[in-house]
C-alpha cells in the first residue's frame, strides 16, 4: 500500500452516475436501500448506510462527498476514548469496540462527515474509511469508489502525486478550472482533494478558506495543555490563601494583631 494515500476528485468530469456509491456500498457490505431519512438528515445525501454520495448542485454540477481524511483530523483529536484513529498510513478509521457513542466527532467534523445509526440500540459511527483494511492487505490496489468511476473523475495516488496532477490539470486548462485546490491547506490539509469549475466552500459548514493552514485540534490543545498548571496553580493559590487567612485569624485571637475594621471583613447588610 502506498503511504499517504489520497483521492483527487475532478468535479468537472463527474457525471453523477453514482457507480462509486454502489461500489462503496458493495465493498463495505452496506444495504443497497437506505432506510428512510430522519428529520434533520444531512442534505448532501450522506447517511450511515451511504458513506459517499453525489451532492447535486445547481447547474448540473455533481460533487462527490466522502470523508476527507484530514491530515490533522478534528474527530480523532476530540474522541475521548480514541475510537477514531488516524492510521500511520493516512486513513482515519473507527473502532466500534472502543466507542462509547458520545457523538463529539460528529460535532467536531467541519465537513459533517460522521453519521450515526439513530434507529439502532447498539449504534456505531459510520463514515468512509478509505477501504483501509483491504488496501493494507493488498486485496485491492485502489479504493472501490475510484475503481468504479467510469469517467476518471476520481483518482487515487499519493498526496504528492495527486497535488501535482491537480496543478497540472489547472495549468493545462486554466479556463476550465478555478485556480484553487480544495483540501490542499484547509484545516491543515486533507487527503481528499477537489478541483472544480465552481466554488466548493459549501462542502464545509463554514467557508474553509477562513481556516487555511489552521488545524482545528490546535484550538483545543492550546487550552488543554495548560491543564496541569491550572490544577497545581489553583491548588497552591487556595492553600496559600487559607494559610494566610488562618494565621491572621489565629494571631487576632492571641491579640498580637488588632482586629480588622468591619470594612475589611466584607461588611454586613444587617
Amino acid at each position, binding site marked *: 500500500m502506498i503511504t499517504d494515500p489520497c483521492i483527487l476528485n475532478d468535479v468537472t468530469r463527474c457525471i453523477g*452516475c*453514482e457507480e462509486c456509491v454502489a461500489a462503496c456500498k458493495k465493498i463495505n457490505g452496506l444495504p443497497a436501500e437506505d432506510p*428512510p431519512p430522519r428529520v434533520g438528515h*444531512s442534505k448532501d445525501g450522506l*447517511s450511515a448506510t451511504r458513506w459517499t454520495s453525489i451532492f447535486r448542485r445547481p447547474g448540473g454540477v455533481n460533487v462527490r462527498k466522502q470523508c476527507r481524511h484530514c491530515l490533522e483530523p478534528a474527530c480523532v483529536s476530540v474522541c475521548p476514548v480514541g475510537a477514531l484513529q488516524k492510521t500511520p498510513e493516512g486513513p482515519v478509521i473507527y473502532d466500534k469496540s472502543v466507542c462509547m457513542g458520545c457523538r463529539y466527532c460528529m460535532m467536531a467534523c467541519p465537513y459533517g462527515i460522521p453519521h450515526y445509526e439513530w434507529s439502532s440500540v447498539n449504534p456505531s459511527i459510520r463514515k468512509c474509511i478509505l477501504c483501509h483494511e483491504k488496501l493494507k492487505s493488498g486485496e485491492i490496489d485502489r479504493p472501490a469508489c475510484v475503481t468504479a468511476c*467510469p469517467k476518471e473523475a476520481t483518482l487515487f495516488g499519493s498526496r504528492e502525486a495527486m497535488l501535482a496532477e491537480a496543478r497540472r490539470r489547472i495549468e493545462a486548462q486554466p479556463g476550465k478550472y478555478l485556480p484553487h485546490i480544495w483540501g490542499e491547506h484547509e484545516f491543515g490539509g486533507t487527503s481528499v482533494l477537489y478541483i472544480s469549475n465552481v466554488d466548493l466552500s459549501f462542502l464545509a459548514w463554514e467557508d474553509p478558506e477562513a481556516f487555511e493552514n489552521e488545524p482545528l485540534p490546535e484550538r483545543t490543545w492550546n*487550552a488543554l495543555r495548560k491543564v496541569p498548571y491550572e*490544577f497545581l496553580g489553583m491548588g497552591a493559590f487556595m492553600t496559600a490563601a*487559607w494559610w494566610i487567612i488562618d494565621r491572621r485569624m489565629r494571631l487576632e485571637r492571641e491579640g498580637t494583631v488588632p482586629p480588622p475594621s468591619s470594612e475589611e471583613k466584607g461588611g454586613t447588610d444587617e
Partner: protein
Amino acid sequence: MTRRVQITKGILWFITGLAAAVTIVRFTRGLGATTVLSDTTPWGLWVGFDVMGGVALAAGGFVIGAIAHVFRRERYHHAVRPAILTALLGYAAVAVGLLYDLGLPWNIWHPIVFWNPRSPLFEVAWCVMLYLTVLFLEFLPVFLERTRFKGLYRTLLKAQLPLIILGISISTLHQSSLGTLLLIMPFRLHPLWYTPHLPELFFVSAICLGLVMVIFESSVTAWLYERRPHTAMLSGLARFAAGAIAFYLAFRFFDLWHRGNLHLAFENTFEARLFWVEIAMSALIPLVLFLVPRVRRSHTGVFVAAALGVMGFLLNRIDASGLAQVWATGTDYFPAWTEFAVSFGIVSFFALIYLFIQEHFPVEKEIVDEEEKWRQRQLFVLPRFDRLSQVWLGDRTFASRRVYSLLFVVALVLGLTLTPWQPLVEASPVQRARGGEVLRVGFPLGTVQFPHAEHVERIGKDRCGVCHHLHRPGDVGTPCTECHADLYLPTRIFDHVAHVRVLDGNRSCARCHPAEGPREAATAAKCSACHEKDMMAANEVVTRFERTDAPGYRESAHALCIACHRKEAENPDVGKPDLFRCATCHRGVEPHGEAVLEASLATAECTPHR
C-alpha cells in the same frame, strides 16, 4: 412534613414516572425513537441541559467550600453541607444523564482504560469521576455523624480542608474544559458565543451559577419546610453573586468588543435576540436586583433574582451547545417531549433523593428535627373514617406514599402510551408521475424519466397488470402513488372504518373475521376473497393481495423495476446487458443525462451490485 412538601413530592414523582416510561423506550428502541437528534444536530437537550447545565449547576459545592473553608467566612458554614449535597447529587445526575445520551452507555467506563489526553471530553470525564469521589468523601461525614464509625468520621473531618482544596482544583479544570469542548467548532458556534476565551468564560459563569443556585436552593428548602431563611447568609451570598456576575458581564462584553463582534448583538437576527434574552436573564436583571439593598434583604427579591439567574445561565449552556449552532447547520431542532421528560425526570428523581437526605440526615439540623417532631405528632393522630369511601384512613405518611405511587404509575402508563416507539423519520409524500409518453417520477422530480409508451410496446398492450398489480375498486391502471404514497414510509391502504360502514355495521364482522378466536388482521379473510374481480390484476408480480399496507414508493419501484430489468438484461434477445444498472433509469438532471447512460454502458464489466 408540610402540605407544600407533599404536593411538591407528588409532582416530582409524577415527572419521574414519565421519565421512567421514556427510559424503557430509550433502552429498548434507541436514541432514534426518543429524541429528535439527527446527523446535523447530534447533541441536543440531554447534552446542553443535563451535562453542560448540570455540571455548572453543581458548581455551588466548590464555590461555597472556598468561601467558607478557605476564606474562612464562618457565616456561610450553614450553606456548605446543602451545597455539597447538591453538588454530589448534581454530578450523579450528570452521570445518569450521560447514560441516556451515550449511544453505547455500557461503555461509559472506557475513558478510564482508553486514553486520549488531547480530547477535552476525556479531561471532563476524568474530572467528573474524580470530583464525584471527592464530593462523596466530603459528604460522607453527614451519613456517619450518627453512626458508630467515629474513627472514620473524625479522619474525614480532618481531611475536610485538603478535600475541599482538591475539589476546587478539579472543578476549575472541568468547568473550564466544558468551554474548551466547544473550541473545536468555530464553524458551528455563532461568534456571539465563540471566543478563544470560552474556557475562562465557562469557569466564571459556573461560579455565578453556583452562587445563584445555592441562594435559589436554600430559599426553596426554607419555603418548603416553612422555616425562616438565613437572611444574613443569603444577602451575603447575593453580594458575592453580584460581584461575580458583574465580572462575568464585563469579561463577556470586553471580549466581544475586543474581537470586534459587538455589532453582531445589535443586528436583527435570531442569535442577537437570543443573546440579549440570555444576558438579561443571567446577568443584567439579577445584577440590578442584587445591587439594591432592599431587594437583597427581602426573601422574595433574592429568590426571584436567583431563579432568573439559574434559568439564564442554564440557557447560556443550552445556547452554546445547541441553539447558537442553528445558524450554521440550518436545522430546526426543538427537543421532543420525551427529551424534556428525561431531563426533568432526572432532576426530579435527584430532587426526591435530596429531600429524603435532608429529612433523614443532619444536612440542615433544623429540618431533621422538624421532621422528627412531625413524626412524633403523627403517632397521636387517630385514624380517620372517611364517610365517602367507607374506609379508615391511616396516618398521612402512608396516605401520601400511596398517592406518590399512584402518581408514579399513572405517569408511567401515560408515558408508555404517548411515547412514539418508532424512530422519527421524515415523511416525503410522492408526487404523482407526470407527462404522457415519458413519465417523470421520483424525488427530486425528474430523477427518473420513465418511457411509458415504450414499455407498453415492449410488454404488450393487454398486459398492464404486470406493473399495475392492484387497482382501486372499479378502477383500472391506478397510479402507483395512490397506494405507495410516501417515498420511504409504508402507507396503510385498508380502510376498516369504510368497510364497516359499507357492510352494514357490527353485524358484518363475520364476513371477514372468523366466528371464533380473536378478530385481528392476521386471521381475517384476504382482500382477494371479495375483490378478486374489481381490484386484482392478473400478473406475475403480485398473485394474491395479502398486505394491508403498501411499502414505500422507492422500495416498491425498485422491487418491481429491477426484478424485471435484471431478467431482461440476461436475455440475449434483448441485447442490453446493462439494463439493470442504476444509471439506466437514474440519468440525472440535464445536461449530463445522456452521458451518464453512455458511461454506464461503456463499462463493460457486468458485475451486478444489487
